[in-house]
């Protein structure tokens, strides 16, 4: 089973990289660009075939390592 983990900065956490990207887009001539936030995508291949167990495992992986829950939120997507 393949999973995709999306890690984003939490609301209320300063994201200077996102701000810099927004500014660069505006400089490139794109109008109407509002807030930009930058996160990361981590793809994980799991031997576990059971969806519910896989989600449980990934949730634990996120809390323990893949995301720092002080400053980041995460979302898990299973790719069948």
């Amino acid at each position, binding site marked *: 089973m393949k999973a995709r983990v999306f890690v984003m900065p939490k609301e209320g956490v*300063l994201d200077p990289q996102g701000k810099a990207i927004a500014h660069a887009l505006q400089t490139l001539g794109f109008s109407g660009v509002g807030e930009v936030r930058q996160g990361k995508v981590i793809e994980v291949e799991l031997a576990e075939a059971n969806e519910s167990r896989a989600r449980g495992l990934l949730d634990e992986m996120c809390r*323990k390592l893949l995301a720092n829950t*002080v400053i980041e939120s995460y979302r898990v997507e299973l790719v069948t």
Partner: protein
Amino acid sequence: MQAAIVIFPGSNREQDVFDALHRASGKKPLKVWHRDNALPKADLIVIPGGFAYGDYLRCGAMAAHSPIMREVKASAAAGTPVLGICNGFQIITEAGMLPGALLCNKTLKFHCRNVHLRVETSQSVFTSRYETGQVLSVPVAHHDGNYFADRATLDRLEGEGRIAFRYCAPDGALDEAHNANGSARAIAGIFNETKTVLGLMPHPEDATHALHGSLDGAPFFAGLAEALG
């Protein structure tokens, strides 16, 4: 005082802190490899600066899970002083030994310069040779030194006197201009509840020799040597 310095792949300031501790205590610190399962008996454990695991994923994220960190946490819980400098501060917060996190500098730039720090409390083994309010000139060298914690945590840290150092102007005043990385409440370093674990972004070990251009870090290590024997 027998100090032990934990070294990860990518640590690069271990020799600087080794020299500072050796000069202050007369005793050579022990160097501990991160894969070791046991810590030697030590009066002080140091997590030095650098780029452990290349800062991959997040600064300090993977180092925080190295086998040796289980022992470091246990030692800290038993009251052994632990000092995390720069990357060491990042590792210690990722390991949950101190609250909050270190974000990217608000300027998005790597800051490599001397800064002024204000000593917020002299009531700890780390700061006993300073006066509260004393201003120090100490180098920083970091890209991700922007301290973040939620408001409740920040209020608790202040209420419990656990802010160790703040970035300040040469006269000790706090303002945005002298908090270049954007840290919450200009926080440069914090203690745990018992003030036996200190994490700080600046490098006091690089202000202990005439050639460093500042000797303001010397009392830091002299105080430790005095307090920890």
